[in-house]
């Protein structure tokens, strides 16, 4: 009947899938400004969280997704969601490998899915996105790309650069990979294996068992105006629709379609040999209504779950050390530094779903995936990693692309006074003191001269920190040559402050071109 529905679905899915993927792989920053926010606005959970922070394009995206779902059911899951499309790709591969693969109707485990959904929502409201971030589809897809695929693409780029370079062509630049660590590799890999195995064997089971977006859209799609229905007049009860349904939501015996589990892929309509299926408005609907969620169960869950959140607060090892400086250093490094625009660690931690788009887009790669630095509650959320790099003084990219509003957009002039931390100088460890030689790498790199060189013994100069004008960019810490513990490092501002503008006065030239040369 309406076979073009599937073709449209595939075309739209490819457009979204490829463009969202490109955002995470765009290490050359060639994506036009604005496209980031347009694309990110179409992602349910980020758009929802961002709308709670600021009203803007994300809110329009959110309304669009909700209206889309109210009209046509969970078509979002088969088109806009990159993780959904990734699973469809796995499913397609699975079908290629085993042509006789068929699905069988399975009553979805609504209890588990909704229980998990309520837990995710509840913990998120009480301040920890830990559970949500483990299963949120956009962010998981983002972590896959930025931690696994992007480094692979960069390696390929560099290999190609080497080949071109061998022939004297410098058109492909080498790109260092600075933000990778064991946890940031293993976690997305584990997730990929989980989703890969689930979808390879059982279709869209992740979407109907674990996914928070799937749960929410499933509830809405129960009330959608258009639904896929089996037309009893044309149906020959061959069961083909059930066999091609990767959401496993068609029961060909009762001729019922569970619209809450249906991801709107239209494979059934495409596959039906007799035109026995259609995508119809509510009035013509023949299918029966579906199970309802038990509200009482939900309330009970909410009340039992809040104490569990307490277990997810930041943890860390204070570390035993006889050395006072070491103690201070360890203490200070227990507190991660959140990017400028994130207001405070609390705001950041409560709104970041760890999609790692900022990590992929950061030109200096100072943003790195954390593991437990923010505590279990903030697992995988990005942090400023000054051993990898430092924050470019003029750059405001992370705030401009964050889909969630965890990092809010900053004007470049405003950003130059946002103080995410303060430099702390450990005199005893400095090269000037330990070796009695000039160094000054910290002061060289400081964009505000919060770190200044002042006279020291034997005509040497030593750093002095004025933390009023320090923005905490980490340039001093990154540049400090002292190993393994830097002699200057940034201490986190849990709530970002405002640095003073560096003072400046006119200066007289020592020489002008009307004078004779002084030599």
């Amino acid at each position, binding site marked *: 009947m309406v076979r073009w529905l599937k073709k449209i679905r595939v075309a739209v899915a490819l457009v979204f899938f490829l463009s969202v993927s490109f955002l995470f792989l765009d290490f050359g920053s060639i994506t036009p400004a604005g496209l980031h926010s347009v694309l990110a606005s179409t992602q349910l959970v980020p758009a929802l969280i961002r709308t709670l922070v600021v009203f803007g394009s994300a809110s329009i995206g959110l309304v669009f997704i909700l209206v889309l779902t109210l009209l046509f059911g969970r078509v979002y899951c088969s088109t806009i969601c990159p993780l959904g499309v990734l699973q469809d790709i796995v499913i397609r591969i699975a079908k290629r490998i085993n042509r006789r693969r068929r699905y069988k109707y399975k009553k979805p485990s609504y209890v588990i899915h909704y229980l998990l959904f309520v837990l995710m929502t509840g913990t998120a409201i009480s301040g920890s996105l830990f559970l949500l971030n483990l299963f949120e589809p956009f962010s998981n897809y983002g972590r896959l790309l930025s931690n696994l695929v992007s480094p692979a693409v960069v390696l390929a780029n560099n290999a190609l650069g080497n080949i071109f370079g061998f022939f004297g062509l410098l058109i492909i630049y*080498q790109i260092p990979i600075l933000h990778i660590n064991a946890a940031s590799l293993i976690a997305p890999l584990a997730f990929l294996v989980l989703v890969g195995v689930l979808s390879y064997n059982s279709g869209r089971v992740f979407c109907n068992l674990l996914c928070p977006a799937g749960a929410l859209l499933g509830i809405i799609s129960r009330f959608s105006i258009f639904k896929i229905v089996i037309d009893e007049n044309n149906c020959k009860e061959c069961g083909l629709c059930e066999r091609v349904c990767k959401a496993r939501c068609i029961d060909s015996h009762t001729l019922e379609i569970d619209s809450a589990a249906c991801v709107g892929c239209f494979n059934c309509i495409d596959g039906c040999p007799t035109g026995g299926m259609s995508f119809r408005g509510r009035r013509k609907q023949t299918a029966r209504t579906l199970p309802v969620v038990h509200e009482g169960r939900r309330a009970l869950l909410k009340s039992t779950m809040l104490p569990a959140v307490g277990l997810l607060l930041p943890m860390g090892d204070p570390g035993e050390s006889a050395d006072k400086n070491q103690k201070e250093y360890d203490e200070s490094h227990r507190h991660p530094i959140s990017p400028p625009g994130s207001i405070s660690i609390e705001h950041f931690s409560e709104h970041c779903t760890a999609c790692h788009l900022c990590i992929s887009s950061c030109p200096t790669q100072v943003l790195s995936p954390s593991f437990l630095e923010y505590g279990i509650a903030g697992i995988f959320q990005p942090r400023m990693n000054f051993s990898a790099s430092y924050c*470019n003084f003029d*750059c405001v990219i992370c705030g401009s692309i964050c889909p969630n509003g965890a990092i809010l957009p900053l004007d470049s002039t405003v950003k130059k006074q946002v103080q995410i931390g303060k430099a702390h100088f450990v005199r005893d460890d400095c090269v000037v003191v330990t*070796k009695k*030689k000039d160094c000054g790498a910290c*002061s060289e790199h400081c964009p505000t001269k919060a770190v200044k060189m002042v006279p020291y013994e034997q005509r040497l100069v030593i750093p002095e920190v004025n933390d009023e004008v320090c923005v905490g960019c980490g340039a001093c810490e990154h540049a400090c040559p002292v190993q393994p513990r830097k002699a200057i490092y940034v201490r986190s501002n849990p709530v970002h402050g405002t640095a003073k503008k*560096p003072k*400046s006065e006119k200066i007289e030239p020592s020489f002008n*071109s009307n004078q004779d*040369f002084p030599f």
Partner: protein
Amino acid sequence: MDRRTFFRKGFGTSVVLGAALTGNYDKLFASAVKESGSPFDLVAVKGGDPAVMFQKGMDALGGIRAFVKKGQKVVVKPNIGWDVSPERAGNTNPKLVAEVVRQCHAAGAKEVYVLDHTCDNWQRSYKNSGIESAVKDAGGKIAPANTESYYHDVAIPQGKSLTTAKEHELILEADIFINVPVLKSHDSARLTIAMKNLMGNVWDRETWHRNDLHQCIADFASFRKPTLNIVDAYNVMKRNGPRGVSVEDVVVMKSLLISTDMVAIDSAAAKLFGINPSDVRYIQLAAAQNVGRMDLENLRIKRISV
């Protein structure tokens, strides 16, 4: 054997060792210039546009053709260390860099590369310094220097603190190396001019900072003599260097220096800046290591007003 192995094994040992045995580093790169062939040890120009001053200065030295020959491969090394706009004078004046590239091409250079191991993000620094577009417009090639893979080990036989370094492969391969620093205040080194600018040739700068910065600067200056040094003193950052905080750190001096001797040119530039060259320790150390001469009064200096 790939190119990298060639450099590591071939260049790093045989060529440099060969030079070490004969004590002939200067001739490694400055072979085109006869020491006595040049009429002046130092040319100082003032009062014009950067490009015009460079042209006038080179005329006094017999033109760029006295240094760059047909078919040669040239590397021009400006200071592109920072992600700041040209008027901040944190990087070499793009007009000057473009003119150097243009003249090298006019002299028949086969390829002219421009690069620097930047401190700030390299792509932003190349772009916002104005140097990337100026060089491309002048027909030069902008080369990356942002990962270790571009660098190869070299030995510095005369080095006291710095005995090895990793230098950019394009510089190692080049027939002609032209050093185009900008004169700036520098918090730790006091001043950054010609010798200090060579820190952008190498990969590992932390080692320098850890092991007596001044000595390392002098040591690396002994590694080899650039074919030419051209000091941009048009806009000069007088304080808060090397990055600077605002345009208010900058004064207009409208000057330019040219020399094959880094010690001489650094000494003259220091005087322009208002600092006694002997107060800059690396200048003193380099002079003591016979890298060049700081006795400006005994040098043949051509002074030009545009």
